[in-house]
């Protein structure tokens, strides 16, 4: 299966380990990735605060590029997924709006025909590839490992733009993958809540308090690690956990895995290749427990 690959800015910037782990597991799953070097940032919901039409136009531009390639888009970022889904939802339900967007794209010789259906790797796994295929590729099951899912808001809400009515399996996708990997799901109400990243530069105290809450909650439930399909959640839950520990005045030391890293571990890929040494919160105890050194 071949997809137009939209890794998102963070997988190319602050989380290079996500990019490399995703490429490795996609290779094994038989997912071919066609890069789109001319695609822009989705706007991450921030640009949309200032100018939603501009944000939708930039996303339509990316969709048009994928249409020209004759491929559907795959991303590895919950935020990119959510922002693209919301833009697509607005354009597809309103042909006049789409025509206005296309007028802006015409200068570059692009037109978005409305056929894009961007999917996060998590959705590609459960909807297009199938968990049976993933099961076949598991050589090092994560038996005895307790993993706490953390989705990222944009992969959960708003449900209409994310097409949850037609795809209820998306609401439990992460748990399904965790079970397929042989690990045990740690269930808690924080799994679909906010990591705090969007207000990091605006109200750091609150942002860090959210990190402290979620990481402490899963720690108390005996989790070995959290697993997230969102690199922005990763940046906050991992990078700001030292501050969260100071704020909450307790040791948490919770490793935060990117979705493809957890899958890669179960596929027998090495700690180094998955970039697990690049985290702020050590993943060493976890990889030792898994038998990955």
């Amino acid at each position, binding site marked *: 299966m071949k997809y137009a690959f939209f890794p998102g*800015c*963070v997988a*190319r*910037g*602050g*989380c*290079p*380990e996500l990019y490399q782990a995703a490429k490795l597991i996609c290779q094994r799953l038989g997912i071919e990735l066609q890069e789109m*070097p*001319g*695609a*822009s*940032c989705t*706007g*991450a*919901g*921030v*640009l*949309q*605060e*200032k*100018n939603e*039409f*501009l944000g939708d*136009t*930039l996303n339509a*531009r990316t969709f048009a590029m994928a249409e020209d390639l004759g491929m559907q888009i795959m991303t590895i970022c919950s935020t990119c997924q959510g922002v693209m889904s919301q833009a697509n939802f607005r354009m597809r339900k309103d042909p006049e709006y789409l025509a206005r967007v296309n007028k*802006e794209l015409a*200068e*570059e010789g692009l037109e978005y025909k409305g056929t894009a259906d961007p999917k996060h790797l998590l959705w590609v796994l459960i909807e297009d590839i199938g968990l049976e295929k993933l099961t076949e590729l598991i050589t090092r099951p994560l038996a005895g490992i307790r993993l706490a899912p953390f989705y990222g*808001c*944009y992969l*959960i*809400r*708003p*449900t209409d733009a994310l097409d949850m009515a037609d795809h209820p399996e998306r609401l439990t996708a992460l748990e399904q993958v965790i079970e397929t990997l042989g690990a045990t799901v740690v269930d808690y*109400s924080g799994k679909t*809540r*906010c990591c*705090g*990243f*969007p*207000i*990091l*530069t*605006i*109200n750091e105290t*609150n*942002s860090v*308090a*959210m990190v402290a*809450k979620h990481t402490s909650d899963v720690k108390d439930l005996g989790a070995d690690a959290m697993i997230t399909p969102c690199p922005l959640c990763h940046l906050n839950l991992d*990078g*700001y956990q*030292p*501050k969260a520990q100071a704020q909450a005045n307790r040791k948490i030391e919770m490793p935060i895995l990117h979705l493809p890293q957890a899958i890669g571990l179960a596929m027998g890929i090495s700690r180094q290749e998955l970039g697990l*040494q*690049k*985290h*702020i919160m050590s993943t060493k105890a976890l990889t030792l427990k898994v038998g990955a050194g």
Partner: protein
Amino acid sequence: MDVTVRIRRYDPEVENPESYWQDYPVALDGSATVLDALIKIREEQDGTLSLRCSCRSSICGSCAMRINGHAGLACKTQAASAIDGNNTIVIEPAGVMPVVKDLVVDFSLFWDKIRQVEPYLQPQGEQPEAEYIASNESMLHLSSVTACIMCGSCVSDCTVLEVDPTFLGPAALAKAYRFTADPRDGDSNGVSQERLEQLVEPTGMWDCTRCGECVAACPKGVDPMDRIMALRDQAMSAGLNNSNGARHAEAFVDIVGHSGSLNEALLPVKAVGITNVPGLISFLPVGLRALTHGKMPPLIHHNIENVKNVRKLVKKLEDPPLD
């Protein structure tokens, strides 16, 4: 339909009060709502169960509570749609606000915040000779926000209020928008400058994480988060750009408009302001940790291919030529 209703209970009048779960088996007909189930339990099994309810038709906003972990109106939720694989429905009091007894919470925090935004028209322009006139068109977009029934569902599930009770919160900010967007409020052009000046302060519009919980929780389509985004747009249009939030949004547009993708090393610097030395210093430990773990975003940021096309789009749509 045989259902188990699992209720989070709390009685403040016992010695050492603590909340606990209690399960009630109840037989319901297929069209029963969650509120029907709760009333049936109270009338037939346990008269000590406390809850608020009145209209039973999603108008009064009394019966907001958490149903299977998410806030909503018990009277608007069909029991059949709320049961899990074991025919169980999990009921808890609304979040954020302190519990008085069982499913009854103290709304003081909710009302304090509504009062804080002064929820009444404050015209500041010249007084008209007769009544203030607002055209139908100018009021249409307010119809969804005036539909708020003050049930507190959005406040219950707000991820910011959960960690910081000083945040104005979704209900009050949506209410504030109801006035800033009203052509009769503010100056003769309908710009509510003073309100917006207050709302850009810390604990106001920029503290929202955009998590979308309030939109999911609202039973009336008020979509508080979308109103908060509209407030941000109004504030920036009114020239209120000297806040971390506004700088963050503007820096984001500048960076994407220049290189086509996000420069993570530059964004926080531009967002806190290049002259804000304490703000910049606060990033140092995090930056250093990232650097030593090989996670530092590249300092030399590469542009996307054919970036000139994105630059053109951003420039045109950010500064549209005057007709």
